[in-house]
């Protein structure tokens, strides 16, 4: 089993740690071991040994072209199945790995394979599909926040790894960070506080940010709010924005249009705060408060702070 890993500051990203943990669990079930392939500057074993990864294959240069990463991963795979995170990198790399290995690809898996099929979400979370891979090798990308990061492993051996990856055809010119300082990026976030038109104006977002900051959550918003420029586009969760799967999604002043639900319906717990008791979002919620966000959000923030005091 091979896990394809993205490093940030020398350590595996959260999505990559989940992919590594998935590869370890799958390898255990098959009586083999899991190996990680990484590229670029690496600190220690990149945090991968803790997930149970036995060995880290280290390609020294940092690669930014998905085509090159795919060639590296395919070279490392040598007959094994390949696991990647279903994040921006995994989505770009996995299809090319599947082509190079002539292997079936199941993207966005949410569980380990069971009796020969693996589960993924389809129809924007409105249904599931159990998929069989018809080839010897398989390529899986793991949906963020669906598979826990294992921490009961040891230290992985690091081995230099060489492969013919060709030249970089996609060249990175600049990076623009979107997340506010200290916030976890939305697709990786376990706690999300989101708000919509019910907040009445961008100047009122302080109460949303206060609750998010007290919880250590990431802020998000509905489409109308992003479209009229109250909030940046990268915060838009929903059908055409980001699809997320946090442990907790708190939505204030969002009615819950079907396009919005499509992006958040995989959240483990949904809390809806709305002045309208008929808001459709309550039907998809676990907890609801009929009330004014301007009164309820500060109370929640105070309660979180009291809990942590």
């Amino acid at each position: 089993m091979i896990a394809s890993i993205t490093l940030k500051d020398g350590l595996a990203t959260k999505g990559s740690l989940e992919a590594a943990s998935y590869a370890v669990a799958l390898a255990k079930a098959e009586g083999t071991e899991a190996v990680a392939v990484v590229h670029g500057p690496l600190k220690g074993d990149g945090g991968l040994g803790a997930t149970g990864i036995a060995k880290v294959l280290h390609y020294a240069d940092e690669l930014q072209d998905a085509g090159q990463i795919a060639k590296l991963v395919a070279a490392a795979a040598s007959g094994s199945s390949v696991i990647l995170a279903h994040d921006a990198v995994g989505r770009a790399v996995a299809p090319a790995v599947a082509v190079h290995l002539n292997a079936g690809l199941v993207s966005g898996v949410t569980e380990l394979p069971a009796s020969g099929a693996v589960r993924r979400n389809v129809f924007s979370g409105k249904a599931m599909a159990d998929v069989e891979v018809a080839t010897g090798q398989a390529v899986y990308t793991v949906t963020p926040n669906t598979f826990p990061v294992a921490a009961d492993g040891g230290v992985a051996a690091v081995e230099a790894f060489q492969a013919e990856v060709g030249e970089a055809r996609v060249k990175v010119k600049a990076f623009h960070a979107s997340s506010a300082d200290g916030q976890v990026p939305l697709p990786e976030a376990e706690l999300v506080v989101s708000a919509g038109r019910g907040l009445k104006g961008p100047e009122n977002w302080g109460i949303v940010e206060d609750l998010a900051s007290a919880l250590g959550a990431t802020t998000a918003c509905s489409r109308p709010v992003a479209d009229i420029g109250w909030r940046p586009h990268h915060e838009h969760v929903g059908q055409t924005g980001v699809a997320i799967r946090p442990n907790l999604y708190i939505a204030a002043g969002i009615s819950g249009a079907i396009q919005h639900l499509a992006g958040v319906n995989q959240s483990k717990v949904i809390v809806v705060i709305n002045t309208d008791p008929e808001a459709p979002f309550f039907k998809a919620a676990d907890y609801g408060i009929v009330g004014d966000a301007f009164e309820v959000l500060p109370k929640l923030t105070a309660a979180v702070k009291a809990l942590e005091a």
Partner: protein
Amino acid sequence: MNILVCISQAPDTTSRIAFTNGDKEFDPNGVQFIVNPYDEWYALVRALELKEAGGGTVTTLTVGDASTDPVIRKALAIGADAAVRVDFKPTDSMQTARLIAAHAEGKGYDLILCGKETIDYNGSVVPGMVAALLDLPYVALGTKLEVANGVATVMREVTGGEEEVEVTLPAVVSAAKGMAEQRIPNMRGIMSARTKPLQVEAGSADAATVVRTFSLPEDKGSCKMIPADQAEELIRLLREEAKVI
């Protein structure tokens, strides 16, 4: 510049999802099909804008049976010059990608644009496979796309932000929100779509994955309501009952 835009049909977002044939197939009965929004709003419209600015052609390609013709006509009504349909009903993305690549091979397209994913199977994999099959560079999740002197500058979504990348054409780019704005076809577009060429090609490819069964999630239990004046109770429940904070 000659651009190929890959167009898929997808059930309208509000469709009731049901399955047939022993839960092995999507049941299209009573379902309104639309052009997959990422293909239409972002990939197709950006292709048209690039053509309007710099000349060239925009051709759409769809892998599907004749039931996809209405969404292909819609793409022509929005402004594509010509359409190709590979007459094959795919069941996995490797088939779709192989048929797109087989069509595009040797046609000299400068740019192949696809939506970042379809809203039915949400795979997000066809454009990357097409690029690998044609040995073209691939940029996923593009939110902006400019082309000058044979070089595309793309803003792409990455974890925690966006990256500006450059790639020499030909290339494959997948389109996310931001690349363009939705266009509503006008009457002239709808009329002219009837006479634009829709060429049907034969093709077939083997599947690398098979759906064993589809299923629907269990209904959520009813929502537990908390009075607004006891909002702090919610925080206690989230910690002690739901155990998420």
